[in-house]
């Protein structure tokens, strides 16, 4: 699957508002957000700020997505714990999972968060779905189902090289 199909799958889920901080792993997907006149993309200055912006958009009736890499997700822990979960703000978080593939050139400053990303989200009670090459939209459909049913954020983890 290519990025374009994944982007269209996001749109088909009703996603109509995006914000976040760019990551190289999401460069191609971001191009579709930026080029789409029917999509809001708000460039935040910090990931936690993006959680705030997306929360405002959700309260206003939008269906937001937040894009970032997992290093930035670490800076969102309090916003998820004290805003999204207690206020029941179901945000879709598309997170680049840096540190993969392990055996190549991913730099050492990504190694600790690579390992901690899933356990930290599990401790928070935030569902995590990992995008698989065979069917990238599966992680999306599982996440959308959890957003609707549990009204909490859900994380989709995207490793480098998933799309052809």
């Amino acid at each position, binding site marked *: 699957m290519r990025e374009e199909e994944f982007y269209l799958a996001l749109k088909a889920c009703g996603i109509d508002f995006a914000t976040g901080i760019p990551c190289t792993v999401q460069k191609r997907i971001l191009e579709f957000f930026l080029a789409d006149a029917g999509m809001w993309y708000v460039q935040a200055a910090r990931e936690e700020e993006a959680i705030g912006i997306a929360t405002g958009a959700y*309260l206003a009736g939008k269906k937001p997505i937040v894009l970032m890499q997992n290093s930035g997700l670490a800076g969102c822990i309090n916003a998820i714990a004290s805003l999204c979960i207690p206020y*029941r703000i179901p945000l879709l978080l598309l997170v680049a999972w840096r540190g993969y593939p392990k055996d190549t050139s991913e730099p050492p400053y990504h190694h600790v968060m690579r390992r901690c990303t899933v356990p930290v989200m599990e401790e928070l009670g935030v569902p995590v779905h990992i995008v698989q090459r065979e069917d990238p939209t599966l992680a999306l459909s599982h996440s959308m189902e959890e957003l609707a049913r549990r009204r909490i954020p859900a994380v989709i983890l995207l490793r480098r090289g998933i799309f052809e």
Partner: protein
Amino acid sequence: MKRYEAIREVMTSLPRNALVVTSAGHISREVHLIGDSSRIFYMMGSLGLASSTGLGLALALPESAIVVMEGDGSILLNLGSLATVAHYSPRNLTHLVLDNAAYDSTGGQPSSTTTVPLNRIAEGAGYALVLRASSREALKNALQKVWGEPFPGPSFVLVEVERGSMRERLPRVPRDPGEIAFSFMRSLGSVSPS
């Protein structure tokens, strides 16, 4: 001017159907005591994110007056949001900072706004209208300007207030966060009444 006097002035001057986001700590508690409403989003945790939530609301609801009311400690946690707000420049956003130059909710420790003028940071970022008020009269005049028609914003009002609260022990906002969000959304039609 006491903080609660400033809040009272703001609450009585709000444009019709305004939506308000208040920051964590004593500001939310005083706003709740002065006048609770389903159109107030009390952000009781996440200190620093009130301005960003206000920005998301303002962009998604361009016809509604969006009012952010936060303290100096709150905006200092998210100064980047001043750049983001100024960059997107929603005309319907009013950003009020109640500046007592202290972390008053936690014991009055001095903040950096003791020396740093937040209004000049907002001006430098590019807010369309930046005002400063340190008396009730000045605040009243400033609010008349920012809430004139059509919206001239985004506007920033630095409201200089004294330390101290309307009561020695301010009660917490006695509402459930999930209910606050749901009532807020229902009041603006994002969810249908059930």
